[in-house]
């Protein structure tokens, strides 16, 4: 069954009452789980202020460092605590692997620590759109550069982003551009540039096989220098100097062949030609919509949301921010029907747990321990179907392209079990990494709830904060029943809570509350509604 959206709303600004529900919806879609500091920060802001904060408050992260040195492995080139991003030596595969994991866990940490900006979510969007695979490249400083490139443009100019990606060593390696030469042209990047990155495979995406071949000819010569750490290198003698003739889809454009260094500039003509096509804006806006709003686009949405946003995209010469801003402010984005209509990806799920519960790494955790904790998160999410920096293939994660299942792809009997085991373990034990246990302070989380002493109010608050969809009265009663151990009198919870608050060091009073809270949390986190945002 496919529920048809009966929405006629479009990109006109949302004009309804701005409530906490609206705020949670906005924050869930723009970050990986809503943190307490976000709640505190945004609760006094209007919608417009909130959106502008999300779009303009990015802070550059610090550099990834050698946090991986251990008894088994010591980096001879990079001292512990210093950045490795300028290190190009890849003789020791164990070391390269450690840096890749270090880079991934560094990104995971950036997502965890993100405060008020949409930056990391947008970076994930572009990472899923313009795909590379770090294990495939196995040259982590290039992966780092690639992600910094994506970050720099994540709300910037899409055309500029594509231009830089086209000449980016990581991409030149990943889609074989580095080997593309006049004798044996490699069409890989030329194809994906059109099919996956810019034009798509929509009904109006009518570029031809010949367009792919001609684009590959344009791109010959853009390569890297393997001897110089994989830096970009234009090999003019590899460049195909002949004219390139494109199809009617591109208005029969001819790119005149150039020789010497001038051949390098043909790429700009190629991108001008591609970006002249209306399909680019529609394609990117649809993908953004699926990422930020909902998996399916019906005719009304295409007409009222996608096309007007595409028009804004074109009018602003492919600046990304005005499009995202308009969407986040729109009546359509804030339609109640769009709330909870997405299934969490593993980042939303695990990092969301971490952020919303305010999990802190143990104080005694060393730099190396922190690396271990983050890599443990990496593998945990990998068991749920997402390993950052390594989507399964060049098309990205199936949840964002696989029609008609889309985000349902995240949920299998295997991953849903792993999700439940992860939250159960967090509640009853903690999050396990090699040498330290990271625990969640549920009572602290509870004490931050306005209605903590009233079991009904508390349950309502937790439902609103943690679940993407309201629960039935039966489920609500059951949750209150857990807090009350089946008693009818809500005062028993109130009493138990205050006894604990007044005697925080009394084990018995703490355990009395904790036993019930753990069961409640386990129940809450296993509800199907917890998987929605």
């Amino acid at each position: 069954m496919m529920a048809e959206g009966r929405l006629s709303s479009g990109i006109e600004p949302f004009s309804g009452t701005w409530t906490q529900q609206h705020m949670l919806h906005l924050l869930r879609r723009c970050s990986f789980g809503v943190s307490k500091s976000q709640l505190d920060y945004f609760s006094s802001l209007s919608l417009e202020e909130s959106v502008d904060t999300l779009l303009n408050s990015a802070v550059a992260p610090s550099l990834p460092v050698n946090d991986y040195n251990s008894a088994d492995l010591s980096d001879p080139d990079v001292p512990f605590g210093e950045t490795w991003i300028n290190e190009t030596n890849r003789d020791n595969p164990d070391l390269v692997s450690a840096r890749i994991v270090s880079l991934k866990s560094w990104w995971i940490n950036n997502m965890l620590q993100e405060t008020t900006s949409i930056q990391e979510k947008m970076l994930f969007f572009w990472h899923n759109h313009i795909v590379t695979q770090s294990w495939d490249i196995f040259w982590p400083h290039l992966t780092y550069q690639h992600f910094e490139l994506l970050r720099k443009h994540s709300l910037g100019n899409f055309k500029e982003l594509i231009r830089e990606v086209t000449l980016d060593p990581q991409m030149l390696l990943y889609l074989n551009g580095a080997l593309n030469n006049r004798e044996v042209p490699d069409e890989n990047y030329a194809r994906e540039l059109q099919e996956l990155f810019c034009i798509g495979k929509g009904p109006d995406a009518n570029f031809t096989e010949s367009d792919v071949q001609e684009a590959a000819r344009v791109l010959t010569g853009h390569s890297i220098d393997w001897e110089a750490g994989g830096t970009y290198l234009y090999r003019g003698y590899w460049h195909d100097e002949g004219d390139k003739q494109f199809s009617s889809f591109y208005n029969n454009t001819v790119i005149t062949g150039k020789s010497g260094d001038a051949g390098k500039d043909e790429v700009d003509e190629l991108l001008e030609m591609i970006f002249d096509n209306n399909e680019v804006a529609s394609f990117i806006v649809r993908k953004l919509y699926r990422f930020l709003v909902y998996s399916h686009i019906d005719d009304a949405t295409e007409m009222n949301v996608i096309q007007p946003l595409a028009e804004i995209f074109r009018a602003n010469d492919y600046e990304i921010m005005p499009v995202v801003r308009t969407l986040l402010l729109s009546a359509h984005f804030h339609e109640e029907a769009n709330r909870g209509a997405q299934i969490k990806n593993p980042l939303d799920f695990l990092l969301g747990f971490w952020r919303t519960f305010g999990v802190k790494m143990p104080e005694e955790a060393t730099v190396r321990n922190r690396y271990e904790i983050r890599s443990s998160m990496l593998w945990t999410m990998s068991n749920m179907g997402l390993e950052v920096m390594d989507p399964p293939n060049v098309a990205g994660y199936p949840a964002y392209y696989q029609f008609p299942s889309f985000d349902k792809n995240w949920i299998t009997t295997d991953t849903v079990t792993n999700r439940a085991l992860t939250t159960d373990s967090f509640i009853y034990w903690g999050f396990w990494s090699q040498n330290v246990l990271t625990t969640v302070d549920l009572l602290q989380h509870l004490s931050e709830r306005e209605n903590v002493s009233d079991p009904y109010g508390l349950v309502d608050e937790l439902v609103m904060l943690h679940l993407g969809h309201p629960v039935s009265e039966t489920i609500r009663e059951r949750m209150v029943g857990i807090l009350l151990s089946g008693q009818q009198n809500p005062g028993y919870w109130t009493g138990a809570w205050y006894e604990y608050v007044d005697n925080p060091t009394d084990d018995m009073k703490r355990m009395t509350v904790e036993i019930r809270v753990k069961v409640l949390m386990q129940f809450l986190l296993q509800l199907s509604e917890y998987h929605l945002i």
Partner: protein
Amino acid sequence: MNRRKFLKHATRTSLLPAMLHGTGLAAFAKSPLYRSLYQSAEDTDRVLVLIYLGGGNDGLNTVVPMDQYAKLNAARPTVILPESSLLSLSGVNNNKLHPSLTGFRNLYDDGRLGIIQNVGYPDQNYSHFRSTDIWMTAADSDEVLPTGWLGRYLNTEYPNFPVDYPNEDVPDPLAIEIGYNLSVAFQGPVAGMGMVVGDPEWFYQLVNDVDEETPDTKAGEKLEYVRLITKQSQVYGEVIREAAARVSQQASYPQTELAEQLKIVARLIAGGLKTRLYMVSIHGFDTHDSQVLQGDHTQGEHANLLRELGDAVEAFTKDLKQLSISDRVMGATISEFGRRIISNGSNGTDHGAAAPMFVFGEQVAGGIYGNNPVIPVNPEVNDNLAMEVDFRSVYATLLKNWFCTDESALQSSLPGNLDLLPIISSSACLSTSIQDRNKHAGSSYVDVYPNPVVDMARVEFTGSGEYLRIDLVSQSGVILKNVIQGRFSREKHVATVPVHDLPAGLYYVRYKDRHITQSKSIVKY
């Protein structure tokens, strides 16, 4: 001799293994025939059903001590039951039952109900929550335990749980609780050792393959999908559905919540589920007010609850009989406390201390155990009934004489020297091959010898290639000693840990890596 009896007999006299040997045991063991034979043999396994009376049941109005009646009349005028309304028990002069308990009266007269008087624990705690936790964990009044008594018991019976569970030997949940959540009673040292059947509605949705309704919205459609996959991932859903499907005829039950729960329990037992522990509950015993109707003390909330209890249990025992499983099912009631001797001004009673416990079943030695409580002549508002029987003695009796646990398993579940009560008639315990198989079900990553231990424990473990650590952990979950940590190859390794410096008692040796946690209990003498 019918097939079931034959197998029962066969198991007992080792005839079955001999017979199987003749056909090639190894091949046969995997065959469906073997499994069906074994399943029938295991039908002899005993089951315990606990009924939790939530809120604290007023014992004095449940089992009335007739030699104290006059004093009760004075002490609790706003709730006292008229003498003429009370139900007499066959052969009993000193006690009568609440008029609603006709079900229990019938069971008693039939010799299938045991009443244990004045059950509680020293230093009564009057908080619902705390006292419930004490009853569920079998802790001392001033002791906090993170594991339940049944969780600890199941850990001794199925020491490898949850690694590679369910499995061919133990395909079914170890325990089932119908209610809000898995009670801390079933919390084991590593994991919750039972499964929750949310409520009867949930059960019938599962059995009849009906799904919870979702709204016809975008979010509703996603929700429906997540629910579907979640249902498919529930490993025990299928075995419950299958067990339920094997039973089509049941006796009639009253239309009450408790009866609905017990009806499900009977169906699952009769359907061949090998689960041995069930917990159901009935809430509302916290009768501070309106325990009785002002004008008619035989009516009111308490009367309704006791009627629901007695009638449901009576229907349940009839059904068990009809399903031919009554000789292997025993039931018991538990409640966090009794209520105050004197009544209050709201036709109710406040939180109290000791109270009677009920045990029922074919194998119960019917009767009344213990003396009548003694009511003071002019009771103060805070006067309570003294405890005579520690509730843990009842638990210990059930484990020892009903589940036939050995001494070390008993010590692991309920440490200390607990008196046993003569409440079970057939105390002839047979050690069955089932118990042996249960102990080996699942994969064992760690074992500890000797058990009980005095000086030095020898810990045998299997490496996983991953970082792991093995700790000696106290009952309350505190790591006392690290036995070993590091990366170990996937073969057997041995480590030792001195324990001579530890006080006598129960400990756990806990194995943990990224994926596996397993705890084995060990008793230090």
